[in-house]
């Protein structure tokens, strides 16, 4: 890895632009904060929070059918609320809903709830036959994000990009656990 690469969130933002992904809906995560801030600051993007991740799947589906490309940013627990709407809207109707998931619940998670829900994410994606890739290295970030977005649009299939703590640093581990 060279030291000249920009931070992951800058790479992601530029890939969104290159693919005309303009509509950004999110339910936030601390790890996504720098990306969300940069997207809000850039007038190229329309960027807003939804009350629930399901809503964003609806908004992105409608927007894509009417000619506007977008993506949903969320964390692992948010993804776990989505199987019904993913199966019956983007999967059934062949709509390329894109998702970027900050991976919580692994590699130093402190919240047992996050750790439990994390284990459901890839099995859900696999059972829906949804394309998904995990970005863990800065030098692979542009390639994986760009190619996944392109393939989703070209094949009219939803896809998920999982941002590993290996890429983002994750959320800092707090403490060392209860003492016996």
């Amino acid at each position: 890895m060279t030291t000249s690469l920009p931070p992951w969130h800058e790479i992601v933002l530029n890939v969104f632009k290159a693919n005309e992904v303009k509509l950004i809906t999110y339910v936030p995560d601390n790890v996504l904060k720098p990306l969300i801030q940069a997207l809000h600051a850039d007038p190229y993007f329309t960027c807003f929070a939804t009350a629930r991740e399901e809503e964003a799947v609806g908004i992105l589906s409608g927007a894509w059918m009417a000619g506007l490309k977008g993506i949903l940013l969320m964390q692992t627990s948010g993804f776990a609320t989505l199987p019904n709407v993913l199966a019956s809207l983007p999967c059934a109707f062949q709509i390329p809903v894109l998702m970027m998931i900050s991976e919580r619940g692994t590699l130093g998670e402190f919240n047992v709830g996050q750790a439990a829900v994390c284990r459901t994410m890839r099995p859900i994606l696999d059972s829906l036959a949804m394309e998904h890739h995990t970005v863990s290295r800065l030098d692979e970030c542009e390639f994986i994000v760009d190619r996944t977005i392109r393939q989703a649009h070209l094949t009219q299939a939803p896809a998920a990009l999982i941002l590993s703590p290996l890429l983002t640093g994750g959320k800092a581990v707090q403490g060392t656990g209860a003492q016996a």
Partner: protein
Amino acid sequence: MSATTHNLKRMYRFDLTQRLVAKLKQEEAVIGGIGHSNFDLWAVGHRPQNFYMLGSMGLAIPIAMGVAMAQPARKTFALEGDGSLLMELGCLATVAAQAPKNLIIVLFDNGIYQITGGQPTPGLHADYVAIARGCGLATATWAADEADFERLLDNALATDGPHFIGCKLDEQKPRAQTERDPAQIRDRFMRGMGTKKNRTLG
């Protein structure tokens, strides 16, 4: 126009849908929520600008909001049932925050899950217009009867929204059942929206 639910006429969904579609002269988009909301839209007569949901209960308003944001010059309707809206009440806050001017929400409130056997929803004491207003949709209103519904539609088509029109329904069943072919529904809708342009289908 009414802000309260007492004395509201309980109306027939097919008749209201027919009245709505008759007013559409500018290729307006219409998103029919799951179940009977889209069955009667289909029964009135297919238009390329109609999208019929098959699942994803509660997402008619978000889908319509996405269409409205992508094409700000096109008026876009969401036809949603009360049971569906209860699944995704938070979307009304999102609509109010983004305030797409071309979005018109029509709520069909029969108080029951008609398609699953008529069980009452938990919204027995819920006033959805009051909820919409509380979320920031200040002009949300109940239609008192059919003539009032038509007047509210004319106003919604002529003025900036987002608009929210609540309708109390009787318990009459839908006239037909939508053909369940999601890829075809999506393809025809995209042609209706002008995002697919070749002329193989309509």
